[in-house]
C-alpha cells in the first residue's frame, strides 16, 4: 500500500510544497501540493527531481558507508572508527595550532536548519572558532551585508505571493525563469494583472522578453545605472520627502554622491541611452507600489554590496517600504540558503543574526552552551584558499576543513586554488550524500541521509519556515547530519545529543527571539511561518512583509542611504581575451548536479558538457554552428563546451551554465572578490574562443572525460544499461 508524504521541495528557495508518493519503500512520483508560494504548481525539478533518491548512478554514486583515507586510498570503515578518527585528528590540530586553524561549513541544501544550527554550535562551542560559513558567501552574501546596513535585515522584505499584486517590478540581474520558475509564474501573473515590468539585464531573459522596458545594459555597470536612477528621481522632484524625512538617515550625503551620476554621465558605462534611464526612473518612482527583485546578476560582482545598498536606496527614495507588494527581494537561490544564514552558519553571527561581537548575545549563548565562545569574526568561505596557501605562519594557517554538504572542489570560484588548498590542508572531512570532487581530496568521508530520508525545517527565500518530512528509509549505513556532528562533538569532549530535530529546533528558538514563535506545532498548523515570529501563541502567525509602517530593523528604526563611486569589473576584455564570460543557470539542474545530475529525466533533457551562449554575429565571425564543440580559455583555465547561437545575447558577451563538470566554467572565472562580502565576480571575466577543427576528436574527448568522471565517482560504467 502506498503513502503520500507532504514535504518542501529541495531545490530552489521558492519553498514549493509537494507530496512524495511512496510505494514499497520507493518514491514513484511527486504531486504538487497547495503551498503558500506554489499554489499547486511545480517546475520540472519539483516534478522529477526526487529521482536521485533511487540512486540511478548517472553522474556519481551514493555514499553508503563511512570511509577513511589509508595510505592514500579511501577505505570503508565502521562509524565508530570514522568518528573517533575524525575527533582525534581535529583535537590534535586544535591542540597544536589553536581552534582558529579549523574551518567548517554549513549546508544550504538538503540537511535543513537543525543540522546547520548544530554545526555552528559545534564549530563555536566544541572547536572554539567562528570559522564557519557556507555557500551563501558565493551567492547572496552581498544582499545580506548590504540590506543589513541599509534596512537592518538582510532578507526579502516582500513575500513571494505579494509579487503578483505589485504595480511595478524592477527586475535587475535576475532570471527567475531559470532559477525560480515558480517566482517567474508570479511575475507572469503580475504582468497579466497589469503591473509594469522593467528589466535590467545584459541578456534577453524570459522576464525581459515580456517586460515593458528592457535595459540591456553592459555587464558590470549595475551601480552606475542604479545611481543614475536615483539621480533622476531627485533631479525631477519625485522623492517621497516625507518618507525620507521620517524614516531614513544619510539622504544629504546620498544626494551629493549621486549628483554626478546623471544619465548622460553613465551612458557610456551602461551602454544605454540617457533617455531610457530617465524613463525607467520615472516609471519606478511614479508607481503606486513597486518591488525590486535581484539575483546573482547583482551579487556575483566585485562591487555587489554597493549595488544592493543602491537598490535599497531607490526603494527608500520612493517610499516603497511599509506595506505589502513593495520593497526589496533578493531572491535566495538554494532551498535553504536562507536557512543556513538564519541558523548562524556565518562567520559573524549566531542564529537570528545575533552578532558574535555583541557581548550580550555572546554571553547568552555561552550560558546556554556552558563554554566560553570566541569573540572575533571567523574566516569567510572564499578566503579559505588564501588562509591555506598564502599564510606563511603555521600557527595562523588553516589546517583542517570540515566540509558539510558542500562541494568547494567544484562550486567555489577559481577551482585551481581551491584544489591546491584541499591538497595542502592537513585534514579534510567531507560529509555528504553523494561522492563529489571534494570527496576525492577528503581524508574522511561521513555519509549522511538526504532530503526525503530525514525530518527538519527549511527557510524559503521569503523567510518562510516549512517542514520537510522523511518519506523513505535511507539505503546504506547512513546517519542524519546532526547525529554525525553530535557524535564527533561528543568524541572531541563536548557532548551533544538530541532525540530529534524538534529538540534542536526548540533549543534554537529559546536562544533566538525573532524565531521564538515559530514552533513545530505552528508550522504543522499553518504550513508555513515567516519570520520574525516572536510569540508562541497562535495569534502571532509570522510576518509576510518586513518594515511595516516604515519602521526598520535597526535599533533606531531608521534606514540608511548609501551611494559610492562605480568601479569597473576586475578583469576587462582585451586583445588576447576579447570576449566577456558570465556564468548563468540551467533550469533543470541544480548547483553541482550531485542531485539533478542523478535524476534520469532531468539528465535526458540536458547533460554534459553544457553550453556557451553566443550572439549570432560572433558565431558567424568565428564560423561556429549550433551544438559544435568549442574550446574556451581564460587566464586561469580551459574547458570544452557546446556552442548555442542565440539572438538573446549581445555581441562580445558570452554566457555559460555553471552546472557542468566537463564544461566547468568555474575553471575560467576570476577570484576577484567584493571587499565587504567576499563574493566572487562570477559574472564577469575575459575569455577567448578557439574553434576545434576536429569535431570527432572533440566529441570523443567529451565522452571519455564523462566516463572518467563517472568512474572516479564510483560508478561501474561497464554495467549494461548504464548511460553513454
Amino acid at each position: 500500500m502506498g503513502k503520500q508524504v507532504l514535504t518542501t521541495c529541495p531545490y530552489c528557495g521558492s519553498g514549493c510544497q509537494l507530496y512524495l508518493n511512496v510505494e514499497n519503500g520507493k518514491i514513484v512520483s511527486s504531486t504538487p501540493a497547495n503551498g503558500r508560494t506554489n499554489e499547486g504548481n511545480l517546475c520540472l525539478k519539483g516534478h522529477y527531481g526526487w529521482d536521485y533518491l533511487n540512486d540511478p548512478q548517472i553522474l556519481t554514486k551514493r555514499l553508503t558507508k563511512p570511509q577513511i583515507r589509508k595510505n592514500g586510498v579511501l577505505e570503508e570503515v565502521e562509524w565508530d572508527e570514522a568518528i573517533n578518527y575524525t575527533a582525534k585528528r581535529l583535537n590534535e590540530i586544535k591542540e597544536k595550532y589553536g581552534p582558529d586553524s579549523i574551518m567548517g561549513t554549513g549546508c544550504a541544501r538538503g540537511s535543513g536548519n537543525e543540522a546547520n544550527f548544530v554545526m555552528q554550535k559545534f564549530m563555536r562551542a566544541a572547536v572554539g572558532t567562528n570559522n564557519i560559513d557556507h555557500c551563501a558567501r558565493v551567492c547572496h552574501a552581498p544582499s545580506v551585508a548590504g540590506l543589513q546596513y541599509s534596512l537592518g535585515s538582510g532578507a526579502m522584505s516582500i513575500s513571494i505571493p505579494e509579487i503578483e499584486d505589485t504595480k511595478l517590478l524592477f527586475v535587475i540581474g535576475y532570471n527567475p525563469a531559470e532559477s525560480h520558475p515558480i517566482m517567474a509564474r508570479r511575475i507572469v501573473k503580475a504582468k497579466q494583472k497589469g503591473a509594469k515590468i522593467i528589466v535590467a539585464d545584459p541578456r534577453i531573459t524570459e522576464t525581459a522578453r515580456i517586460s515593458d522596458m528592457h535595459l540591456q545594459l553592459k555587464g558590470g555597470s549595475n551601480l552606475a545605472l542604479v545611481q543614475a536612477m536615483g539621480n533622476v528621481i531627485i533631479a525631477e522632484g519625485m522623492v517621497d520627502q516625507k518618507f525620507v524625512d521620517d524614516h531614513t538617515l544619510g539622504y544629504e550625503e546620498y544626494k551629493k554622491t549621486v549628483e554626478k551620476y546623471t544619465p548622460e554621465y553613465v551612458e557610456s558605462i551602461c551602454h544605454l541611452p540617457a533617455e531610457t534611464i530617465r524613463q525607467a526612473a520615472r516609471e519606478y518612482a511614479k508607481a503606486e507600489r513597486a518591488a525590486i527583485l535581484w539575483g546573482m546578476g547583482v551579487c556575483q560582482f566585485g562591487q555587489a554590496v554597493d549595488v544592493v545598498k543602491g537598490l535599497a536606496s531607490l526603494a527608500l527614495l520612493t517610499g516603497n517600504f511599509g506595506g505589502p507588494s513593495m520593497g526589496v527581494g533578493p531572491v535566495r537561490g538554494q532551498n535553504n540558503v536562507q536557512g543556513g544564514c538564519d541558523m548562524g552558519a556565518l562567520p559573524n553571527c549566531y542564529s537570528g543574526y545575533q552578532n558574535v561581537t555583541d557581548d550580550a548575545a555572546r554571553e547568552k549563548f555561552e550560558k546556554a552552551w556552558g563554554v566560553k565562545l570566541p569573540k572575533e569574526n571567523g574566516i569567510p568561505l572564499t578566503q579559505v584558499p588564501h588562509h591555506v596557501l598564502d599564510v606563511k605562519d603555521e600557527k595562523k594557517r588553516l589546517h583542517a576543513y570540515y566540509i558539510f554538504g558542500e562541494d568547494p572542489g567544484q562550486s567555489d570560484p577559481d577551482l585551481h586554488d581551491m584544489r591546491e588548498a584541499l591538497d595542502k590542508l592537513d585534514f579534510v572531512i567531507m560529509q555528504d550524500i553523494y561522492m563529489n570532487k571534494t570527496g576525492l581530496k577528503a581524508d574522511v568521508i561521513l555519509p549522511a541521509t538526504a532530503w526525503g530520508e530525514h525530518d527538519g525545517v527549511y527557510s524559503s527565500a521569503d523567510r518562510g519556515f516549512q517542514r520537510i518530512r522523511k518519506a523513505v528509509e535511507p539505503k546504506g549505513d547512513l546517519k542524519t547530519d546532526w547525529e554525525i556532528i553530535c557524535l564527533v562533538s561528543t568524541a572531541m569532549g563536548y557532548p551533544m545529543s538530541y532525540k530529534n530535530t524538534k529538540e534542536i529546533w526548540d533549543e534554537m528558538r529559546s536562544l533566538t527571539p525573532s524565531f521564538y514563535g515559530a514552533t513545530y506545532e505552528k508550522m504543522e498548523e499553518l504550513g508555513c511561518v515567516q519570520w520574525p515570529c516572536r510569540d508562541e501563541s497562535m495569534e502571532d502567525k509570522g510576518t509576510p512583509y518586513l518594515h511595516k509602517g516604515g519602521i526598520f530593523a535597526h535599533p533606531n528604526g531608521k534606514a540608511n542611504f548609501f551611494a559610492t563611486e562605480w568601479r569597473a569589473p576586475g578583469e576587462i576584455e582585451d586583445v588576447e581575451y576579447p570576449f566577456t564570460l558570465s556564468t548563468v543557470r540551467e533550469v533543470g539542474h541544480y548547483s553541482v548536479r550531485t542531485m539533478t545530475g542523478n535524476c534520469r529525466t532531468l539528465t535526458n533533457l540536458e547533460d554534459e558538457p553544457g553550453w556557451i551562449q553566443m550572439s549570432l554575429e560572433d558565431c558567424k565571425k568565428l564560423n561556429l554552428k549550433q551544438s559544435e564543440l568549442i574550446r574556451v580559455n581564460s587566464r586561469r583555465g580551459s574547458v570544452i563546451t557546446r556552442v548555442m547561437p542565440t539572438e538573446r545575447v549581445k555581441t562580445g558577451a558570452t554566457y555559460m551554465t555553471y552546472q557542468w563538470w566537463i564544461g566547468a566554467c568555474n575553471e575560467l572565472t576570476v577570484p576577484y572578490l567584493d571587499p565587504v562580502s567576499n563574493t566572487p565576480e562570477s559574472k564577469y571575466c575575459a575569455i577567448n574562443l578557439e574553434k576545434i577543427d576536429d569535431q570527432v576528436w572533440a566529441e570523443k574527448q567529451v565522452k571519455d572525460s564523462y566516463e572518467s568522471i563517472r568512474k572516479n565517482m564510483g560508478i561501474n560504467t561497464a554495467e549494461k544499461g548504464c548511460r553513454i
Partner: protein
Amino acid sequence: MNYFVKGNPDLCIGCRTCMIGCVVAHEGVKIFQMKPGEYVFNPKLDIIKTATITMPVQCKHCENPACMNVCAVGAIQMSDNAVMISPDKCIGCKTCMIACPYGAIDMVVSSDGKKQLDGSERVVANKCDLCTGIEGGPACIRVCPTAALKLVTEEAVETSVSNKRTAAAISLAQVKEY
C-alpha cells in the same frame, strides 16, 4: 474537428517541464525504476526561443494533414479528434517529417522496444498524440507551472468564435453610416 494544444508565449517561461511531462506520460513512471539507458526519451513537443518569443511547438492535428496524405503505408490516421501515428505500421521513411509545415514530427527510436529483423533499433515517426488514452488528458497542460498550454477543442473554438461575433455585432452597431 481535431483538437490541438496551443502554447501562449505571454505565459510560457521556457522551463521545459512540459517536455519531461510528455515523456513520463507516454513511457510511464516505470522509467524511474529502469536503468538510465534502458528507456527512450522522446518528447513530442519542443520549446522554441527567439529574441521575442518563447513557446512550445507541437502537432496541430490538421484537418487535412500533409503527413497523413503523404504516408505511403497508411501509418497515419485520424481518430478521436486527433491525427495519430501507428508506430507498428511506420517504416521510418521520413516523408511525413518533411511534409509537416510545423516541424512537429521527428524520427526516434521506437519506445515499444520492438526491433528490426536483424536486431537493430526501429526508428519511427514521433509527434503529439494529445495523450489519447492517457488518464487526465495532455500531460504538458497538466504539468505546466504557468498554465501556458491549453487544449483547443471544438466547443472552445465555437464559444470563442461566438463571443467574438457578439462583440463584433455590438461594436458594429455603433456605426450608423459610413
